[in-house]
């Protein structure tokens, strides 16, 4: 099967790229290795659409997405992506926390972001549910959150409506060069797909796929765990985080809270199917209750785990690979891919059609390591 662009990976990056390409009349085939669209980090993340706390190199991407895309995304995708832009509180309770938050804040201000340090009192003015434990916070009013599930499926739905051809359960094993250019994608079932450009956006798996054309990206899979609560009446709409990153999350439109966790043992999770640990949810509950005592009675209904592709320097690779003409890499999102996905999709579509990209991508070169 042929198309102008073959995208390997049906996550939100692949889907948003397919959407941007299909919208411009470019023929696309998207190959998803698992049975389900958006099965990796795309639907397994905390839904943050945030600028604060981000690596300065990534900031232009997310600032662009927030300014130009997120607000209209629900209409664009004919899907409620539940985007809320009501600020981000990153909470702390010790001097060390203050130091961490202050450092992040100063760096972001230098990049032109509207973010500042506030004290516990002001934090409680913004979010009255916060306990006295909270003594400091960074506050970025233009941050927010969205629903990763509907955003990912929305991009998929729209891309498909616009003519992008998705195939799931089609695990790519090899990229093959034809006369010096990456042109063919070969799958486990033996099928061959051919295109002028091949975009690899398969999370950690990208590593194995691009190694078949002699490329490597230094990254490792790291487990992420999340808990979801029952729905309760609306309490607050800010995105939350902590200086220690021991939990982060928000209340969704549905009324449930979604909290990402960090028990500290995630880097030692065994490879294979991502599975929840027996202790992480409990540990997170203790952390959440310390800052939000009024959530103590709320019931946890679900927990899940997923792999993220953590890059050596914690920012992604979004880059054409000149030494393998035709190959474009988009991986190593290091757990912050969701908020920037709308921008990344646009930029990748520009790379694939050899247009000048709206934003400079030189920080995300594949050969920076």
């Amino acid at each position, binding site marked *: 099967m042929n198309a102008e662009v073959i995208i390997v990976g049906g996550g939100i990056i692949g889907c948003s790229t397919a959407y941007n390409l299909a919208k411009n009349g470019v023929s696309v085939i998207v190959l998803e290795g698992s049975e389900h669209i958006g099965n990796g980090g795309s639907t397994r993340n905390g839904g943050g659409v945030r600028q604060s706390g981000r690596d300065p190199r990534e900031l232009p991407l997310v600032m662009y997405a927030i300014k130009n895309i997120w607000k209209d995304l629900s209409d664009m995708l004919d899907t409620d992506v539940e985007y809320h832009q009501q600020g981000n509180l990153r909470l702390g309770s010790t001097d060390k926390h203050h130091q961490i938050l202050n450092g992040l804040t100063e760096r972001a201000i230098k990049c032109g972001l509207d973010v500042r340090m506030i004290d516990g009192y002001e934090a409680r003015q913004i979010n009255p549910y916060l306990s006295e434990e909270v003594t400091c916070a960074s506050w970025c009013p233009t941050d927010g959150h969205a629903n990763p599930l509907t955003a990912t499926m929305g991009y998929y739905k729209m891309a498909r409506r616009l003519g992008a051809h998705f195939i799931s359960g089609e695990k790519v094993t090899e990229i093959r060069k034809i006369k010096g250019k990456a042109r063919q994608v070969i799958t486990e079932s033996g099928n061959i797909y051919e295109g002028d450009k091949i975009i690899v956006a398969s999370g950690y798996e990208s590593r194995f796929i691009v190694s078949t054309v002699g490329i490597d990206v230094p990254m490792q899979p790291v487990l992420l765990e999340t808990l979801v609560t029952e*729905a309760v009446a*609306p309490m607050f709409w800010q995105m939350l985080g902590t200086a220690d990153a021991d939990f982060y999350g928000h209340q969704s*439109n549905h*009324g449930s809270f979604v909290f990402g966790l960090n028990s500290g043992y995630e880097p030692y999770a065994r490879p294979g199917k991502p599975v929840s640990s027996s202790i992480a949810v409990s540990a997170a509950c203790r952390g959440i209750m310390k800052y939000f005592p009024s959530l103590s009675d709320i019931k946890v209904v679900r927990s899940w785990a997923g792999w993220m592709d953590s890059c050596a320097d914690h920012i992604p690779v979004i880059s054409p690979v000149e030494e393998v003409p035709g190959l474009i890499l988009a991986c190593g999102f290091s757990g912050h891919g969701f908020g920037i996905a709308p921008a990344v999709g646009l930029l990748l579509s520009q790379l694939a059609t050899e247009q000048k990209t709206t934003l400079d991508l030189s920080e995300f070169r594949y050969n920076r390591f």
Partner: protein
Amino acid sequence: MRIQEHPILGTYDRGEIVSFTFDGKVLEGFEGEPIAMALKNAGVMVHRYTKKEHKPRGIFCAIGRCTDCVMIVNGKPNVRTCITPLEAGMEICTQYGVSAEPSNGGEKK
């Protein structure tokens, strides 16, 4: 309606008669029986109205699975009344969406 005597089971072990309130009205039931049973015997069929369509719901599975019978109990929403034992003085309220207020059914936004 209570079964007074059953041909196979005889009579039932029941707790003390206790009072509780349902939407402010004082009702009686047996201590320790599921809240839903006390309500059912007091003629209460509707436990809640749903969030989106505002439709009535009551007992459905009676074993804590389906969560249709949830109500506000002592201020806590989403309490499965079919498996929560009745205690004296409990304040039980009809749940609207996820709230006790008919006007705010936990509507989004």
